[in-house]
């Protein structure tokens, strides 16, 4: 942290470097996504009972995180952007949890 006065946050080191993601990274991500797509189809044809939707959602989530981190550059963004993205998914999870808890508990003991 510099001693210099910087009230309007001009010399923020997070602003300084803009990371250019290379085609090599993009290609690795691309191939990984295709492999996971194949995996999710194969997994669907194996009977894992209750685990089938869990595995399907886990694979989809891994793919989504890979896309967000690399294709959408979040890995290379400032903390502000990372926080924004996390806050969005957290809020979505909170809304789902609260709504589901209502549906689950409304007829509690009546079944």
């Amino acid at each position, binding site marked *: 942290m510099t001693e210099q006065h910087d009230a309007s946050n001009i010399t923020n080191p997070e602003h300084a470097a803009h990371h250019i993601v290379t085609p090599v990274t993009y290609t690795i991500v691309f191939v990984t996504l295709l492999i996971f797509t194949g995996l*999710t189809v194969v997994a669907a044809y194996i009977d894992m009972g209750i685990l089938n939707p869990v595995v399907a959602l886990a694979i989809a989530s891994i793919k989504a995180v890979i896309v967000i981190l690399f294709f959408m550059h979040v890995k290379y963004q400032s903390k502000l952007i990372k926080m924004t*993205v996390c806050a969005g998914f957290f809020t979505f999870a909170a809304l789902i949890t609260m709504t*589901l808890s209502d549906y689950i508990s409304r007829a509690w003991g009546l079944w």
Partner: protein
Amino acid sequence: MDNVIVATHPHTHETAQGEEHAHIALPQHRHHFETQEQQREAGTFGMWLFLLTEIMFFGGLFFSYLLYRNWYYDAFVVASNQLSVPLGGINTAILITSGFFMALGVWAAEVKKKGLLVLTLILTMLFGCAFIGIKADEYHEKWEKHHIPGDHFDVSEFVNPHAYGLKEEPLPPDQAAHTQIFFSLYFAMTGLHALHMLIGLGILVWLTIRAHRGDFTAGYVAPIENFALYWHFVDIVWLFLFPLLYLINRHPV
């Protein structure tokens, strides 16, 4: 980190320019941003805020899917098995390829390769159109089989699957009627996704024309970058739609 508000340290924009840092005088640099990096981050921030509203928008549909799938699981299984896994899988690969070219486009803009940028944008569009084409074919098949919810919805394949050569368990008529809920959600979710893609394809045409003019290969990549965020977001929605709609129960015991 300084917490002092700017007013306690008075300087005008003009003095700041001279004393603290040098402005890069690019035409796209708006005067209310101190640096180009700050402008860029503000743009990315705004785009992500928009995408968060999109998460909530699609999220509502995913939530209804979750509830109805639990309530009418048997109807969801047989209705889901009507969808073609090869077509859905190919479409997933096509969409990932389209996103890959979009990502390459961002790189091309950043390293200022105009020809490559135009090429990647066109390839992004082509794969996007291929996706829509396959989707249209799938919709058409549903239309012919009367599997579009409404007055003309036909439950016969679900009430009497063996007559159609299907290996499903027959559903009682009241359960079979619930397959309409699956198809309603199928059309709402994939339709909304396809609508996003059509809007994206429209924007892509405009971006390609501007890219051809050289607008984005002279240091100003924000429109390409932010559109790429949108396009990747639409991809992510499909990454969830594919297993949830096409792969509910593909392993009949």
